[in-house]
């Protein structure tokens, strides 16, 4: 056995919390199926031995469907000698044991962590873990990971496994359909090459219709043996109403019930908790949408817009930077560097300190930080799948399904991060539509915060800006859905219970996201400062801005705004922060503000998002997106300006 632990399990069972408890390194823990897009690994010190622990995206069965399940299976098959720690939710054991059976049959070293024992006790369940372990033939540990219960015992069991005192391999086989069982035996006898899982398991996966494995086996076994295998595969295809795969799911479920006979008992559950009543209200037609509005108003407008972009930014910018740091730096730089030329690199109008550091720390970080806090709260409470349920009908009109609300809402925080998250969507078509909409009409939290802060004294302006951006968003989605080939995918999603989030989890998560964001932007901000400074000193900057000026003046904006547009491309938030500065200096009237806000919101994504789009969607679709966005953004701005002129604003 290699010194490696893979944490495997369905979504929403607490894999990531167990990972954190074992390794101490924080990872995004989420209530939404499939947010652990990236694989996280850490180290566990067990008996003076360092063991690598890997957290994987949720997996429902060994036959994967989504891109993330495929990733998990790849990791599993690439590490046949590691220890698999399967995490299951104690309330849904019958549904989760089939994966256990499949892992045992595939020949993995397996330890089972039955998590969320607290929730299952509240539901009135009682489970005899030691008999469960005996029946399955593998070590079983009960945990309440969110409270750290059972973790020491889990570590002890892992130690015993490595010492050889506990056997993590089992000969347990669930009873399955006779015909399929026999076919699996015949097929496995035909498999002559070596594979990372047992041949009987591989044969059953082939019978389940796994296309990826069929290709692998065809390649490894050669055409003549493959032809024989195929005849066996075809021979069972018509035997079952819903196909062999579904038949096996039925059998495995029955086997799971059998394993639990006599050891899983249920008294009547405790009285309905307020969480459950609230959970119903969050998805019911009227109350659901009212709660959604309240969440958006309180979370985005009050917390991110007013508190983050208002109170926090004011304090950091006015007091910390303008009041303390910048005067101190100015004095310092002036004392060290006699030359005006070099001084301006640090403290000039586009200096590293006055612009780069200040924009990053005083304006952008508090806004993005408060958004990430809000988003983590939504994630950990289990609200996101409910949001998906509420928005599914609306999303369908844009060619997306309810799942797409996750990247779209995350886009309100950081469009770059959200573009990466479009991986959770199933079809290429959906991923493109979501990426396009993110690039066009979803303002990131920095933009959103700045724009809300600028416009909030004028409710009419906020409404007009929102209406214009929303209109563009819906129109673009509608057109893409109408003219792109392909179909709107089906929507089905597990809805976990509403859970009271743990503040420490949310804070750690917010922190790790802010850290990701900050490491991403800070060098870019500093770089931009230097580029602008160089451009200004050499005069190139002025001539590029000169190109932008006619466009900007067509929108009725003062020429100074060209800077915000130009640098908005490097960072969206940078452009927004520039706008903030201009508005503070009083150059922009209300009409200018709304026009600039609309145009900047729709305008090009920042360079980081552009790079991610290029990587995820390819050059063709990225260039198409950009080619559409530029004229649309300016046209929308032009229209808004015209409209406001008509009404004499």
């Amino acid at each position, binding site marked *: 056995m290699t010194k490696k632990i893979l944490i495997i399990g369905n979504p929403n069972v607490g894999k990531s919390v167990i990972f954190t408890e074992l390794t101490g390194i924080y990872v995004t823990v989420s209530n939404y199926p499939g947010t652990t897009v990236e694989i996280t690994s850490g180290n566990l010190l067990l008996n003076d031995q360092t063991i690598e622990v890997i957290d994987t995206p949720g997996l*429902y069965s060994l036959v994967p469907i989504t891109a993330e399940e495929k990733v998990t299976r790849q990791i599993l098959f690439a590490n046949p000698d590691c220890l698999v720690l399967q995490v299951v939710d104690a309330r*849904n054991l019958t549904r989760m044991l089939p994966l256990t059976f499949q892992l045992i049959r595939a020949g993995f070293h397996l330890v089972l962590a039955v998590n969320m024992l607290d929730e299952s006790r509240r539901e009135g369940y009682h489970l005899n873990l030691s008999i469960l372990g005996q029946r399955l033939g593998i070590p079983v540990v009960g945990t309440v990971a969110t409270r750290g219960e059972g973790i020491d015992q889990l570590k002890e069991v892992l130690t015993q496994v490595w010492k050889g005192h506990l056997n993590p391999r089992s000969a347990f086989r669930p009873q399955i359909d006779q015909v399929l069982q026999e076919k699996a035996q015949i097929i496995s006898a035909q498999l002559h090459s070596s594979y990372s899982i047992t041949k009987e398991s591989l044969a059953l996966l082939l019978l389940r*219709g796994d296309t990826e494995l069929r290709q692998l086996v065809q390649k490894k076994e050669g055409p003549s043996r493959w032809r024989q295998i195929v005849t066996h595969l075809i021979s069972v295809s018509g035997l079952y109403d819903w196909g062999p795969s579904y038949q096996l*799911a039925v059998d495995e479920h029955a086997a799971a019930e059998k394993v639990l006979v006599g050891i899983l008992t249920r008294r009547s559950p405790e009285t309905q908790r307020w969480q459950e009543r609230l959970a119903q209200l969050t998805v019911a037609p009227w109350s659901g949408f009212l709660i959604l509005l309240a969440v958006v108003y309180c979370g985005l407008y009050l917390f991110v817009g007013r508190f983050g972009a208002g109170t926090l930014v004011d304090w950091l910018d006015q007091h910390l930077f303008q009041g303390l740091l910048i005067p101190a730096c100015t004095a310092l730089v002036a004392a060290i560097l006699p030359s005006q030329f070099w001084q301006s690199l640090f403290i000039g109008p586009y200096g590293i300190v006055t612009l780069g550091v200040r924009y990053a720390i005083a304006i952008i970080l508090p806004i993005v930080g408060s958004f990430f806090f809000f988003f983590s709260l939504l994630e950990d409470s289990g609200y996101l799948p409910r949001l998906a349920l509420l928005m599914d009908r609306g999303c*369908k009109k844009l060619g997306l399904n309810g799942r797409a609300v996750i990247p779209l809402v995350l886009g309100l925080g950081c469009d770059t991060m959200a573009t990466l998250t479009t991986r959770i969507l199933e079809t290429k078509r959906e991923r493109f539509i979501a990426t396009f909409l993110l690039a066009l009409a979803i303002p990131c939290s920095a933009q959103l915060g700045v724009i809300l802060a600028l416009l909030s004294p004028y409710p009419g302006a906020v409404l007009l800006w929102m209406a214009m951006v929303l209109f563009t968003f819906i129109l673009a989605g509608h057109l893409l859905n109408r003219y792109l080939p392909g179909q709107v995918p089906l929507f*089905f999603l597990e809805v976990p219970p509403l859970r009271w989030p743990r503040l420490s989890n949310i804070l750690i998560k917010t922190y790790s996201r802010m850290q990701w964001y900050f490491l991403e932007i800070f060098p870019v901000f500093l770089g931009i400062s230097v580029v602008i400074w160089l451009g200004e000193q050499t005069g190139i900057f002025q001539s590029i801005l000169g190109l932008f000026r006619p466009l900007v003046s067509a929108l009725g904006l003062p020429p100074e705004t060209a800077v915000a547009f130009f640098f908005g491309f490097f960072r969206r938030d940078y452009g927004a922060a520039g706008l903030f500065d201009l508005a503070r200096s009083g150059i922009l009237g209300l009409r200018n503000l709304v026009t600039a806000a609309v145009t900047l919101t729709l305008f090009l994504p920042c360079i980081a998002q552009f790079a991610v789009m290029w990587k995820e969607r390819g050059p063709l679709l990225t260039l198409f997106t950009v080619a559409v966005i530029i004229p649309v953004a300016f046209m929308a701005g032009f229209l808004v300006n015209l409209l406001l002129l008509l009404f004499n604003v």
Partner: protein
Amino acid sequence: MEPIPLTRLAPGASARIAGVRSRNQQLVHKLGALGVLPGLPVTLLQDYPAYLIQIDQTQLALDQDTANCIEVLLI
């Protein structure tokens, strides 16, 4: 008794799952893995804005087309 699509149930009603009927094998497989299996009791919690069903301790949100693929027997 003939199985009927889940969409014909009134919100609040319970039934027993008869199976998943769809030519989309991936959908059948996925719903099976989510626990939509014959014989299990299912309760339709709501049907708007999306369908929400409960099977044992699991709640699933479905759109109309998916819900139509799930066949149930009235108890």
